[in-house]
């Protein structure tokens, strides 16, 4: 048994967390110093940092503060910090979750090299291709239990997936012919300055989304997806009303409630705290988005029966599993809460649904239910905008896919034409801005 992270470090175990343990307002060198035991002087440490980052091809400027850096650069800090301890055993938890395919390739080169140096690497990932490519042995966990140990190179991605999810996943079926109708959500040349310290500037975003259509927005996290969601939902207002048009009405200046009244519905990425108020009951959470247009309020009084009915309907339609009829939102598991949130919005019969990361951190069963619901909604004639980091998900449900990079949106590609390579290049910014792409990929 280890007593804590510092003992693990002493014993030669290096850790790279999925959620970075970095300090935004400290410099790169200070961040690295905090991960070491402090036996060498800060100056020596800084010198060694530059040396290590050069040897492994992980360039970093030790004097910059973390908040100024990209996600890929932040991960580099984590890796360099782990390498500075000269670990015998390195643990990486979902390291490519936030990287472009090209950045991931760079990482794999570093990992191969570490392996060649005789270090053991524990690589935690749900991306089967990566596991097949990198790993010599794979242990598959499901629901906290070890289900198999195998040589991933001898397995197919499909056989690994079966072990991982346990049985075949329910196929998502699209209706054979979806008719597209009138444009229901139009964005015209939307530009917006960032509102937060670490925000991204939206630049000249334009697209048109017709009824019956699902548009996917791909991209590495933190390239303006959150900002776009805020601009579409009305959490941030655009200067020019005409930049966001919902159902033919200029809505850029309208509040979220007014947009809901036009028939729009929104499902944000963050389930607890943004999508729902964690400590409030599901019925109260139903009211929070339904008060505008769903007849839950009469002359200022809440129609409790109507809010409870929404909960019951969402529970039935979307198979939400919960301990009692109306529990607190925080008591549900991630997948069930997400099904409830998506269900809550879909039951309002929206003309436009904007949904961000619909199946993030959700089990495979719930993910299938949610994707099917989105497809059915589009079949019923709604316009659906899905932002996701999961390219497989977008390939499965979207008709067209556009990519966000540095606050700009690429022209949408038909899903049939959107190969992983093309999307990967766009996610690294290649065909948008060759120079910046080189920086993001080669840096």
């Amino acid at each position: 048994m280890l007593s804590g992270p510092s003992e693990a470090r002493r014993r030669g175990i290096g850790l790279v967390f999925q959620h970075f343990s970095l300090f935004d307002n400290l410099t790169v060198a200070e961040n690295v110093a905090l991960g070491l035991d402090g036996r060498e002087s800060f100056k020596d440490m800084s010198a060694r940092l530059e040396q290590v980052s050069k040897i492994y091809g992980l360039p970093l400027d030790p004097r910059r503060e973390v908040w100024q850096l990209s996600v890929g650069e932040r991960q580099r800090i984590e890796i360099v910090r782990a390498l500075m301890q000269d670990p015998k055993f390195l643990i990486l938890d979902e390291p490519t979750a936030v990287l472009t395919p090209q950045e991931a390739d760079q990482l794999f080169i570093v990992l191969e090299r570490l392996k060649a140096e005789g270090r053991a690497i524990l690589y935690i990932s749900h991306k089967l291709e990566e596991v097949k490519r990198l790993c010599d042995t794979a242990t598959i966990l499901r629901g906290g239990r070890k289900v198999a140990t195998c040589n991933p190179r001898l397995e197919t991605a499909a056989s690994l997936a079966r072990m991982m999810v346990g049985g075949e996943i329910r196929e998502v079926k699209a209706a054979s012919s979806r008719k597209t109708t009138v444009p229901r959500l139009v964005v015209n040349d939307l530009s917006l300055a960032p509102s937060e310290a670490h925000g991204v500037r939206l630049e000249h975003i334009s697209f048109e989304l017709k009824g019956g259509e699902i548009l996917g927005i791909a991209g590495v996290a933190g390239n303006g997806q959150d900002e776009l969601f805020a601009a579409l939902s009305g959490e941030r207002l655009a200067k020019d009303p005409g930049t966001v048009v919902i159902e033919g009405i200029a809505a850029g200046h309208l509040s979220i409630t007014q947009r809901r009244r036009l028939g729009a519905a929104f499902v944000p990425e963050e389930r607890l705290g943004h999508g729902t108020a964690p400590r409030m009951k599901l019925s109260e959470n139903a009211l929070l988005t339904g008060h505008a247009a769903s007849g839950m309020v009469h002359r200022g009084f809440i129609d409790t029966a109507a809010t409870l009915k929404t909960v019951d309907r969402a529970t039935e339609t979307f198979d939400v599993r919960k301990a009692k009829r109306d529990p607190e939102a925080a008591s549900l598991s991630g997948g069930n809460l997400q099904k409830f949130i998506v269900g809550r919005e879909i039951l309002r019969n929206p003309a436009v649904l904007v949904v961000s990361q619909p199946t993030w951190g959700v089990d495979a069963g719930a993910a299938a239910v949610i994707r099917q619901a989105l497809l059915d909604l589009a079949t019923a004639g709604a316009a659906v905008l899905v932002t996701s980091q999961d390219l497989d998900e977008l390939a499965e449900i979207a008709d067209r896919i556009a990519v966000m990079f540095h606050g700009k949106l690429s022209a949408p590609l038909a899903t049939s034409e959107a190969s992983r390579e093309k999307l990967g290049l766009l996610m690294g910014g290649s065909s948008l801005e060759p120079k910046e792409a080189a920086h993001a990929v080669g840096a």
Partner: protein
Amino acid sequence: MELVEAIILAVLAASTPLLIAATGELVTERSGVLNLGVEGMMIVGAACGFAGAWLTGSIFIGALFGIVAGTMMSLIFALMALGLAVNQVATGLALTILGVGLSGLIGARFVGERITPAVHLSIPGLTDIPLVGRVLFGEDAFVYVSIALVVGVWWFLYRTRAGLILRACGDNHVSAHALGYPVLRIRTFAVMFGGACAGLAGAYLPLAYTPFFIPGMTAGRGWIALALVVFSSWRPGRLVVGAYLFGAVTILQLHAQGWGVGIPSQFMSALPYLATIIVLVMLSRARSGGSTAPAALGTVFVPDR
């Protein structure tokens, strides 16, 4: 000339308690803890400091009494806000209310008593230099201690590993915990340092500023110290500037009244606070990202075991 010298001396005397208390609070806040109880810790420091000096006849022991009293008060805060994870704002406010009452109780016995105030430095030749002599070489020990304190804090925060860890706790306690740092223990020490400084700042008032104790004699200086920390954007260098600026405005306001300047004194007293707001707005506009305040300031941290 004499008047200018007198004004500078008065400004230094008025600024010193602000500087000491604010330096302590700066360290507390840099570790991510917002202790609004500075006023309460100061006033208890004042009462206990006077009691110590009156009973022993020693200003030094009086100052020690003040430091210990402020530290004890801050331990109450640490127990509540860190140990039991109570809301820091509520705890800090309660601490101030407690401190005001407690100091009245402790000090009641000493109201009307007098002591010999702290002696001023006197170096023949140097102290007699016109204008600057008394300002530089004729102060009481508290003034020199306050300067040493703020320089020491600057050195600690930016030049030592312990200071870096303390700043890390204030920026992101989750990461600091993940890296194996004892966040709550570090914060407890930071809170205690803040309490010790507040106690010393409070003790300065009856030991050097006026030679007697009256209830409520801190008169809002703890709140000004809190505003100063924000004004300084949590940097020791700017804190010195801010403290002397605040002290200067306090003194000038008295003189302005004496000269019959037609500005209401209440407006003059409000100026430092107005300046704080303006500086804050300017800082947030000038910086394009990151945060000037410690990012974890005022948030409760409960390590999972």
